């Protein structure tokens, strides 16, 4: 029966021949970005060298280290909004909590080892995101985007007010961290060593996120952000999926935040608050959500311009206004962000089946995943 009917309608369908997948642009952007990050300190140091001595711990390396850590915040925002439809308007909450926690930990115990700081930041980000997510995402009915956005914004705002008035964590002055962090017994002062540590952390967080969103779990997320009701009818437990992503995003934010606090030597109320949260949203929308690399680029461009313009007092004063105007234009006319100019809608959603034949570039993650079978 099946055989005869199969011949009737679809002549092209002989056996299991699969049409070719279209070319991917995203992996090229990702690799280019990685290459740029790896080579940047060397270029910038030679470029800005005065006299004979090369200072690899120069201002430009240190500033970009901060940006790389903020990019981790941007990635965590993208996991929420770009991949799961959770409009987290308070992502800095987890970034800041990570920072505050390790600052307090180091003040109380004198602990400065990165091997403690990083897991502590991750854990505290994970747990706080789990608690906030539980409240915002778990209910009988699917919560609306507005509810989640306002809820997370409020949480971030409340945390900012709380730490600003709480003497135990330095109140309005924030907390200073006087010691450099250590890695395997050596001090890690801001500079090239710290830079590559930040790159390594961003890379690991990025690859883990990439693995997640391209797994079968990620396929479910792709379904959720297109049609939640349909997924519920298929038997998916939507809220569990969302809570897992939200918590994982919290882990990445807390991780980035903990290192950021040590890098800046300071964590203040603004870091947990609305301003930083808004920046996370801006990085994402500007660079292009739902691509992971987009928000990283967004953070790089927005923060990079801020660094460049900060030399010029006049421009610096007008910069926030210009940024606001650019954001309005992007949201209105280019909702897929910078990366959306290069990457098709189709590639952003991606495809999740197994890849047969030759290993194509940039899809090795998916290939590895099959190895678990």
């Amino acid at each position, binding site marked *: *029966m*099946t055989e005869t*009917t*199969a011949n*009737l*309608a*679809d002549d*092209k*369908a002989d056996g*299991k*021949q*699969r*049409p*070719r*997948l279209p070319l991917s642009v995203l992996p090229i952007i990702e690799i280019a970005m990685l290459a740029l990050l790896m080579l940047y300190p060397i270029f910038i140091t030679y470029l800005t060298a005065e006299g004979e001595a090369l200072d690899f711990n120069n201002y430009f390396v240190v500033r970009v280290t901060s940006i790389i850590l903020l990019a981790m915040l941007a990635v965590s925002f993208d996991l929420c909004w770009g991949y799961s439809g959770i409009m987290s308007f308070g992502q800095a909450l987890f970034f800041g909590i990570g920072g505050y926690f390790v600052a307090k930990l180091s003040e109380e115990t004198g602990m400065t080892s990165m091997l403690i700081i990083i897991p502590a930041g991750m854990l505290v980000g994970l747990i706080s995101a789990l608690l906030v997510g539980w409240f915002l995402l778990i209910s009988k009915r699917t919560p609306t985007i507005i509810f989640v956005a306002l809820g997370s914004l409020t949480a971030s705002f409340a945390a900012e007010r709380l730490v600003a008035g709480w003497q135990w964590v330095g109140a309005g002055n924030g907390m200073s961290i006087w010691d450099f962090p250590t890695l395997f017994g050596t001090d890690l002062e801001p500079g090239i060593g710290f830079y590559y540590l930040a790159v390594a952390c961003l890379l690991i967080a990025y690859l883990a996120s990439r693995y*997640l969103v391209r*797994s*079968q*779990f990620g*396929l*479910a997320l*792709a*379904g959720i952000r*297109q*049609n939640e*009701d*349909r*997924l*519920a*009818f*298929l*038997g*998916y*437990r939507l809220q*569990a999926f969302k809570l*897992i992503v939200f918590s994982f995003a919290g882990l990445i934010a807390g991780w980035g935040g903990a290192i950021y606090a040590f890098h800046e030597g300071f964590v203040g109320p603004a870091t947990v608050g609305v301003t930083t949260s808004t920046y996370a949203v801006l990085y994402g929308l500007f660079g292009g959500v739902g691509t992971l690399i987009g928000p990283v680029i967004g953070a790089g461009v927005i923060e990079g311009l801020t660094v460049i313009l900060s030399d010029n007092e006049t421009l610096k004063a007008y910069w926030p206004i210009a940024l606001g105007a650019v954001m309005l234009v992007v949201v209105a006319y280019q909702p897929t962000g910078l990366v959306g100019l290069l990457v098709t*809608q*189709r590639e952003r*959603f991606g*495809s*999740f*089946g*197994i890849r047969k034949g030759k290993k194509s570039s940039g899809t090795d993650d*998916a290939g590895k*995943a*099959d190895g*678990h*079978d």
Partner: protein
Amino acid sequence: MAMTEPLLKVSGLGKVFGTLRALNGVDVAVHANTFHGLIGPNGSGKSTLLKAIAGDHFADEGEVSFAGEDVTTMSPAERSRRGLSLKFQITAILPELTVYDNLLLALQAHQSMWGLLLSRSRQRLDADVMDMLAQFRLTGKAHSLAGEMSHGEQQWLEIAMALALKPKLLLLDEPTGGMSPEERRVTGELLEPIRDYCALVIVEHDLDFIKDICDNLTVLDQGQVLDDGTVAEIEGSTKVQEVYTTRV
């Protein structure tokens, strides 16, 4: 033939929307491996009944039991896990995903979280996806975006997705709406083989289509059961003819 316990048993179902009594004391019984049609004029409560069975909304009174279990207040996801599957009236495929991914999404729905995170079943389900695609004549479209296919093909994909988890009962809400006569004919052919493992409840305007594929019919009118029986019995029913000739 000894009557076995029906797979789906709807008893005394009532549903009120504001002042409208959409369903009033409806009884329906569907046995395993049979195709059951729900017919009736517009607004007679067919879709409301189907949604109450699927769990899209809950009935105000009465009971829905499925495979011997009371499912009246269960969520759609819980019903789905018990083998009750719904195909929507408006196609609810995921247009931005490929046809392949749509089916994979349906096939992997009951995998564990860890299994999904580690993509454990991706390799194993590939053969199932390709089989289903072949069965529904969509092999050549595997990597097309679902939203770019013709209306008829989207409906077939939708049916394939609803069948992916080998449900015991499939609810079809107007599967041939908007299809060409040729597509309707093929749809009938595609549905026939599922009888081996699945019962069907089907809401449909096209009476010829429904008479061709169904074993039993329930005729609804103004939220109540007007008549039920085999296709032959309903065709001979004077009550039904009256409603259809005077009001449709």
